[in-house]
């Protein structure tokens, strides 16, 4: 999620605002500047690399996992970590490493889907509210306030109670929870851009609303939204794990990290590795999304550093 899919005009009017000294060279596309700056931030670069590895692991899960995730071998049950089973085996003799590798796919898919949903719906709401203002703003944002008044986990639990458990519904539930967050961030960012000279100039020469929004407002309002996306991915993975842990998310025998933790909980004094490794996987993924979000914020949106710390949790 390093900003590649952004609709970027080649020469953005704010290209020099990011603290990059402007030179005589033709301005680079902004996403390349961003990548360059990000690469110079060691923490963010490491986080991005680890995330890339986790995503690759999730994509090639079947061929990477040493054995099938649901391959039962009762004679091998509850084996401590060894060479044959680096993360040990569970109570049915299933290889934990394989299940962690396959769990990456489940956890990440739910996380990405949830954030994509929240980003599209919340972003659209925030865009409309911020751009048109007046009653559109009032109606949409009051509705967001109401949604925001619910504690996140509880709202997700309620949505799952309505829709029934499962991976798709979990993504929907987490997505709904994060709609107001994206709506607020987008609205605030659009408000800041709406009255810029280039937007007014474009409007004065008769550009349509659609053109204004897509060519001028959205690209320039994007940085805080990108940062929020990375941070939300962290929380979405965490929320998926929590919901699965409660038995409301991904259902057995699918290996979701949260579910594995819940299953391992019963064997905690017998076999610590059952709960330890899935937890470590969640922690590492969430940590990397957070670090990447921080790095992106430093590069894209330095003013927001203090404002958004920890929003959404």
């Amino acid at each position, binding site marked *: 999620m390093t900003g590649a899919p952004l609709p970027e005009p080649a020469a953005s009017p704010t290209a020099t605002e990011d603290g990059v000294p402007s030179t005589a060279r033709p301005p680079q596309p902004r996403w390349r500047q961003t990548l360059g700056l990000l690469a110079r931030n060691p923490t963010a670069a490491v986080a991005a690399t680890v995330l890339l590895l986790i995503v690759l692991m999730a994509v090639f899960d079947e061929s990477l996992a040493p054995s099938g995730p649901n391959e039962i071998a009762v004679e091998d049950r509850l084996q401590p970590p060894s060479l044959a089973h680096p993360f040990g085996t569970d109570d049915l003799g299933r290889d934990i490493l394989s299940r962690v590798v396959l769990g990456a796919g489940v956890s990440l898919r739910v996380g990405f889907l949830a954030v994509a949903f929240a980003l599209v719906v919340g972003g659209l709401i925030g865009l409309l509210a911020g751009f048109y203002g007046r009653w559109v703003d009032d109606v949409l944002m009051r509705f967001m306030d*109401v949604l925001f008044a619910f*504690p996140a986990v509880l709202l997700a639990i309620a949505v799952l109670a309505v829709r029934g458990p499962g991976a798709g519904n979990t993504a929907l539930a987490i997505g709904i929870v994060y709609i107001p967050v994206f709506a607020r961030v987008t609205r605030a960012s659009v408000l800041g851009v709406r009255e810029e000279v280039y937007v007014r100039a474009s409007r004065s020469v008769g550009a349509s609303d659609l053109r204004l929004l897509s060519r001028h407002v959205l690209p320039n309002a994007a940085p805080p939204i990108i940062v929020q996306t990375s941070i939300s991915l962290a929380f979405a993975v965490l929320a998926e794990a929590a919901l699965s842990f409660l038995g409301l998310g991904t259902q057995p025998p699918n290996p979701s990290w949260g579910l594995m933790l819940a299953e391992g909980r019963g064997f905690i004094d017998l076999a610590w590795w059952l709960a330890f490794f899935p937890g470590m996987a969640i922690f590492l993924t969430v940590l990397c999304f957070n670090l990447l979000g921080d790095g992106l914020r430093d590069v894209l949106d330095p003013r927001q550093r203090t404002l958004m710390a920890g929003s959404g949790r």
Partner: protein
Amino acid sequence: MGVSVIVFGLVQLVPGDPIRLALGTRFDQETYDALLARSGLDQPLVTQYFSWAGRALTGDLGVSFRSGETVTSLIAERLPATLTLAFASILVALLIAVPLGTLSALRPRSVVDRVATVLSQIGISVPEFWMAIVLILVFAGTLGWLPSGGYVPLTEDPAGWAQRLLMPAVVTGVVSGSVITRFVRSSVLEALGADHVRTAQAKGLPGRQVFTWHVLRNALLPLVTVTGVQLAYLLSGVVVVEIVFAWPGLGQLALQAVQSRDYPVLQGAILLFAVVFLLINLVVDLLYTAIDPRIRR
């Protein structure tokens, strides 16, 4: 108002017939109809909403389908446990965040600062339930110092109460504390750079005095807001931790209600959480006006 419509609407969408569920598999049509009429589930939805909302305003949230107790009494029974845990957690969070955040702001880029940054990043990213399990494994399993969970009222056994409160409070406190640490750090840093601080230093005031009266006072003002917001989030984060530590609070109640399709209890619990959330935000706003003269007109 809007909150109540959503709570009601959401719960109405839950699939499954609660009366059928409450009665079990063997029942006759007559009992079924009688129960249906008594619970008001045969009325149109709008009528159901207004009668529910009207009664909710007077504190009557209905009767649990499952146990037959009133929802209000079920919630009242669970509320103290959840509030205890939430306040203990916020205490832990502040005890971590204020010293750590201030120290790292006073020496930016020092070892302390770096360690604090790493620790808070870890605290934000660690799954609460996993930390809970690891703590149980270490302190209840291997070391055997603390009970692995449960709850005893303070009045019956203060020591046992504290022992059982410690681990859940630390788990949720560490997470909130990490968020607050980052906030304290940036807010102290900002106050350090403010003009009035430079003036105070230029006047020749001793460093300690400048720090307590000019830096800390200003830096900790916004802390009220963050702490309030975190307290509200805590109430929600507490759900999972309550389950792991068998802490008989509202989160546990809500989850059980979902599992047994106990609409009135679920409605009541969610409504209460939302109301508490709004109340905390209101109190924070009021408190902020009270302590920050700049906001008062």
